């Protein structure tokens, strides 16, 4: 079946777009048709990606499979090059999978002004952007997909977002939360990506000094390892800085994170889920796929800074969580902390660390995605996210409460569930970072990271106590709340199962990534790098 080899990835990426077009043709009133199309398309996309995974040769997960490399914009040297390796495979699956769940969840959860047609249409466009980013192997293509997610997300937040007015410091007029958040999200990301684009272009022309100019990620990676001096020095430092701006905004890393709490708070449930589960990963994926392998030498220089910012993010995010009253905002800040672990892993520049980052990304996608689902469903029922008004949820809506409890446990990194591996491995990596990095610094970071886990447990359990436990406040007396319905269950159960599965059997992720990461690190930082102080020599 060469069809799958040649077209599999392309169809996986663009099928949602076709779905979006189809939905666009459906009259607005026919909600059922729009939903059905979205469901069928997203399921098909997921199945296709699953087929790809099934046919994926894990024995050579460090090589790009199902590659397509064809002309696209010849005159500027950009090509349509997509491929799947062990690093992108889990991300692609995560992306296609979460979209399915989001469609299912959306079946009967609509924020005002409803309009399922528009919502699902945007969501499918978003899916194309996300899938595309994870498989793109050309910098320009990557950039396009990376940016493609902006528009739909802007509208998802802006149209279906939170409509409570909010006073923005520095501005005279009140603005609805959704409006502020949407434009903030958009401007932040665009700001970063403008510089990222400059970086990409610069790489392209620099690559001309050692052969043909190219935007091709594998080719550039190859170039970086064969010509170590090419992307180095001041030049490399600047270019890495440009890429850093682009990716770090998306991750988001402290102090570029402030769009995130606003965006999450304002976004509709599904928007939050997609944002947390996948969009944030685009940034960290960019680091792994592009910044590290192509710019290994500058990565050295930057790694301590990234590590420090990551740990600041962990501690800072946790502390900020403790001051929140809004449940979604709390979860949003928790993302800052969790992504801090991901970035700490990346900053170590070691195999362990990068594996940690990937599994951390997957886990965060599953767990925080689920958390936002839950928060959304609760807000749906209580019409408030204010934790001081919630409480006793476990009593009022027991199954939902139970799932919330489970997810909180997963989120605080309980061993045996998915969240643990990322945190643990990232600490493991930072104990002995790449040889040339300051071991002392990273060990200090490790300790702070570990303290961060306690704080994480702190705010998570605190949230659980405030929301789930205790007697329900009198406000809710006499209210009947329906417990988890079947759409919610259908959307959440797979996540729960996966959280446990990855927790019990991390091979699900690491099995794909490990070899790919090893090759990546070997190429970028030389074989035999890292961890010398072993076995007493």
């Amino acid at each position: 079946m060469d069809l799958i080899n040649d077209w599999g990835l392309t169809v996986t990426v663009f099928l949602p777009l076709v779905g979006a077009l189809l939905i666009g043709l459906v009259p607005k009133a026919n909600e059922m048709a729009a939903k059905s199309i979205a469901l069928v398309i997203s399921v098909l996309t997921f199945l296709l990606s699953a087929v790809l995974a099934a046919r994926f040769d894990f024995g050579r997960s460090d090589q790009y499979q199902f590659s397509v490399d064809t002309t696209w914009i010849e005159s500027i040297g950009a090509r349509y090059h997509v491929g799947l390796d062990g690093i992108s495979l889990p991300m692609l699956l995560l992306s296609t999978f979460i979209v399915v769940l989001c469609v299912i969840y959306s079946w009967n959860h609509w924020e005002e002004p409803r309009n399922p047609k528009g919502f699902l249409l945007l969501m499918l466009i978003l899916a194309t952007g996300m899938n595309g980013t994870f498989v793109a192997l050309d910098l320009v293509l990557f950039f396009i997909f990376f940016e493609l997610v902006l528009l739909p997300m802007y509208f998802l937040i802006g149209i279906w977002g939170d409509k409570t007015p909010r006073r923005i410091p520095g501005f005279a007029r009140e603005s609805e939360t959704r409006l502020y958040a949407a434009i903030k999200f958009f401007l932040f990301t665009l700001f970063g990506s403008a510089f990222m684009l400059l970086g990409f272009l610069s790489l392209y022309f620099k690559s001309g000094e050692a052969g043909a100019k190219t935007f091709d990620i594998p080719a550039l990676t190859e170039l970086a390892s064969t010509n170590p001096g090419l992307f180095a020095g001041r030049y490399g430092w600047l270019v890495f800085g440009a890429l850093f701006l682009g990716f770090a905004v998306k991750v988001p890393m402290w102090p570029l994170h402030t769009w995130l709490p606003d965006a999450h708070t304002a976004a509709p449930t599904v928007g939050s889920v997609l944002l947390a589960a996948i969009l944030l990963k685009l940034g960290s994926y960019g680091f792994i796929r592009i910044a590290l392998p192509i710019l290994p030498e500058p990565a050295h220089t930057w790694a301590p800074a990234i590590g420090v910012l990551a740990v600041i993010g962990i501690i800072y995010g946790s502390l900020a969580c403790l001051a929140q009253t809004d449940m979604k905002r709390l979860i949003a800040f928790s993302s800052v902390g969790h992504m801090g672990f991901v970035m700490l892993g990346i900053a170590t520049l070691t195999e362990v660390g990068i594996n940690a980052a990937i599994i951390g990304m997957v886990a965060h996608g599953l767990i925080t995605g689920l958390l936002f689902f839950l928060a959304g469903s609760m807000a749906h029922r209580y019409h408030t996210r204010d934790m001081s008004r919630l409480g006793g949820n476990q009593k009022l809506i027991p199954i939902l409460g139970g799932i919330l409890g489970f997810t909180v446990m997963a989120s605080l990194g309980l061993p045996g569930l998915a969240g643990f591996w990322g945190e643990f491995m990232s600490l493991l990596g930072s104990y002995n970072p790449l040889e040339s990095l300051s071991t002392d610094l990273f060990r200090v970071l490790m300790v702070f990271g570990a303290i961060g886990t306690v704080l994480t447990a702190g705010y998570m359990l605190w949230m659980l106590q405030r929301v789930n436990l205790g007697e329900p406040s009198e406000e809710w007396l006499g209210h009947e709340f329906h417990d988890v319905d079947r759409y919610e269950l259908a959307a959440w159960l797979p996540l729960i199962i996966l959280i446990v599965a990855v927790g019990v059997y991390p091979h699900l992720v690491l099995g794909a990534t490990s070899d790919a990461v090893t090759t990546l690190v070997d190429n970028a930082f030389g074989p035999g790098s890292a961890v010398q102080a072993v076995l007493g020599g």
Partner: protein
Amino acid sequence: MSYQIDYLALAPELVIIATLIGVLILDLFLPRNQKYWTAVLSVIGVSLAAVPLVLLAVDGTTRSMFDGSYVVDTFALVLKGLFLVAGYLVLLMSVSYIESDRYYQGEYYFLLLSSILGSLVMASSRDLIVLFIGLELTTAPLFLLAGFRKGDAKSNEASLKYYILGVLSTALLLFGMSLLFGLTGEVQFDAVREKVAALGDSPALGVAVLLMLVGFGFKVSSVPFHFWAPDTYEGAPTPVTAYLSVNSKAAGFVAMLIVLYRAVPDAANYWAPALWLMAAFSMTWGNLSALRQRNIVRLLAYSSIAQAGFMMVPFASAAVAGADLTEAFSATVIYLAIYAVMNLGAFAVVIAVARKTGTGEIDGWAGLGSYSPRLGVLATAFFFSLAGIPPLAGWFAKFVMFRSVIIAGGVATVVLAVIAAVNTVIALYYYARITKAVWLDPAPAEAAGDRDARTSGSLRLALGISAVLTLVVGIFPAIVTVFGDASKVLGAAG
């Protein structure tokens, strides 16, 4: 001395000439309620003019006439194509707009065609005189068209302001040209270039080049020669504004680039820093001013000022860095082509929406998406394309711009690149504000206009063409790189 005239090479111009005379004559005989036939004729004429263009393009040979003062090469052809397509779109936009108001239709189309003719001539000009005449023919009818809403004080004002500043710029341009002629004794660009190269440093050359640059700066509405633009855009009939912001600006750019690139590349030490400043100020000033606009057309005016700044970036940075101008040249031309399509689309939307909302204020657009989703989508597409968001065409324009900056390298260019990057973000804000009004704001209870107003067929066609182009070019930008490649011909020839 006798000169051969290649009629095929001149065929597009001749077709337009025939059309505009036809329009003038037809207008005499048509009863008032059937004046729209002049529009039909104009549309047909512009379409027909594209036929020889295609033939010439297929032929591909460079045809040079009159001692090289009039050249039809691929560069001229693609630009003529651009002018024709843009003119075509403006004509489509005009039909219902002009019909609906009390306009002199025949004269309107005649003047528009004259302007198109001027731009066609200009694209082929390789000689100061031809260039000047072409440019004047492009601009002069627009002075009149801007005032075509005769009863409207704003339109009057638009016309007068545009006219006075226009003639001022013409005078400065001419003075510069006269100096250049005095210094070189030539008007044909290639000859001029040889002389200029021999001339070396000369303040008079600098003054000459800069005065010409000022003249072109007016046409492209670059800061600080932009002042006319907002008022004129606001006052002029909207299709004319569209034409002003696209064809006229493009013509100005083409003139500027041909002269700088073909005639005085060796005086780059004079014009490069000036262009750098103009680019930086245009972007920043235009964008910052756009932030404050409430009127959609004024906003587009300032946006087009900023866009002009972006368009100058490649050339400015390449010249400042002393790099090869060819890449920069093709980048600017590509930008110009993409800008033309998306900006015309934006204006088409503005025209269509104005019917529905009955106001030019951005606030009036609130909730457009709820009662007219198609227009909402189109507005979103065009404005985000202008902002440079993939996968809409605008991204590629921004991309080639940044690309050429990076090719140039050097500190001054990096500074310009950073200014451009920051400006991209600022620009997004006000473009997004429009889409915010369209989608995120609730529709007011009652509108001044007729929400159920149907968008006329010709306008739909214009919208459709520009939308398709915006999207297709965004996804397969290779299409527009033909502009870039063609413009390299200009460099190769010289």
